[in-house]
């Protein structure tokens, strides 16, 4: 099986089928990435298609200094950013998250609320921190790949990730301090010995 780089060379030489193979390999990952940033399936699908079209049109500019996947992700992230800028921001309001839980009775709902809180807080991170954190945790990319996608130095990508994670930790600790809800405390994984984990219980 040919590598991505070999397929890119074939595309540059005029082999359209090689690009078809690249689309097959990466369309799923690109859709996942786009959905994560845009949430709206129709927009995400548009971004996937537009990204592949842009990649095809600009493939002569790809020099192989990064992986093809990183380059494609970079195109998709920029395309998604442009779409996001044209949309009104919609955040989950923490106040709307259902906290009125009968302790121990609705654990499934508690977990879902915790997920909502975390998703909401991830959405509130500065754009570059959110991007670095999402690419690392959700897409399992290396910091080298993240730096390529974000078009920044390696250390900057890592710093954005660290700052995003620490900001989330601080926000969750603050939220914990604002509620008397015991279940929230028992399930929120913040260190310091003040919170227990599910396993410990």
């Amino acid at each position, binding site marked *: 099986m040919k590598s991505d780089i070999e397929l890119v060379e074939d595309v540059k030489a005029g082999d*359209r089928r090689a*690009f*078809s193979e690249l*689309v*097959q390999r990466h*369309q*799923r990952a690109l*859709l*996942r990435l786009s*959905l*994560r940033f845009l949430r709206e*399936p*129709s927009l995400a*699908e548009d971004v*996937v*298609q*537009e990204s*592949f*079209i842009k990649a*095809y*049109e600009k493939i002569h500019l790809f020099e192989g200094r990064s992986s093809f996947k990183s380059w494609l992700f970079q195109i998709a992230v920029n395309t998604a950013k442009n779409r996001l800028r044209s949309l009104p921001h919609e955040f989950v309001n923490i106040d709307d998250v259902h906290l009125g839980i009968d302790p121990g009775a609705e654990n499934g709902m508690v977990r879902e609320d*915790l*997920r909502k809180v*975390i*998703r909401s807080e*991830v959405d509130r991170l500065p754009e570059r921190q959110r991007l670095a*954190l999402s690419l*690392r*945790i*959700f897409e399992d990319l290396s*910091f080298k790949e993240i730096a390529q996608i974000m078009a920044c130095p390696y250390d900057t990508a*890592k710093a954005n*990730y*660290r700052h995003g*994670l*620490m900001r*989330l*930790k601080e926000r*969750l600790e603050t939220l914990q301090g604002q509620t008397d809800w015991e279940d929230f405390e028992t399930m*929120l*994984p*913040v*260190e*310091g*010995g003040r*919170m227990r*984990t599910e396993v410990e219980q």
Partner: protein
Amino acid sequence: MNHNSHPRPDEWWIDLIEGETEPSLSEDLTLLLLNSPAGRERLRGLKELRQAIKDSDEVLLPEDGTYYRDMHSRIMAAIDGPNPRLQRLQTKHTGAETGSLGPVSRLHALIKKN
């Protein structure tokens, strides 16, 4: 180095979790973990936070192979067209005009189903 001193900054623990610890710090952190319950607690907390973020992921992809074959066909058709961007829009509109379940609706349906 006093290994019973205050826990290291979170950045160091994050680097350790991510496998990014500088070699010069690696030995010190290992010793610190052995000797500092507070350090172990911070490390555990950050690991759990990372896992909770990962678990919060709500992106569900359609498993239906037909969906991806259709997407692939549309992309390649757009690329083959005289004007890829115009072709892309025309392809999408055609799906809607036929009244069939278009690609976007199918993605919605598949995600809801999952």
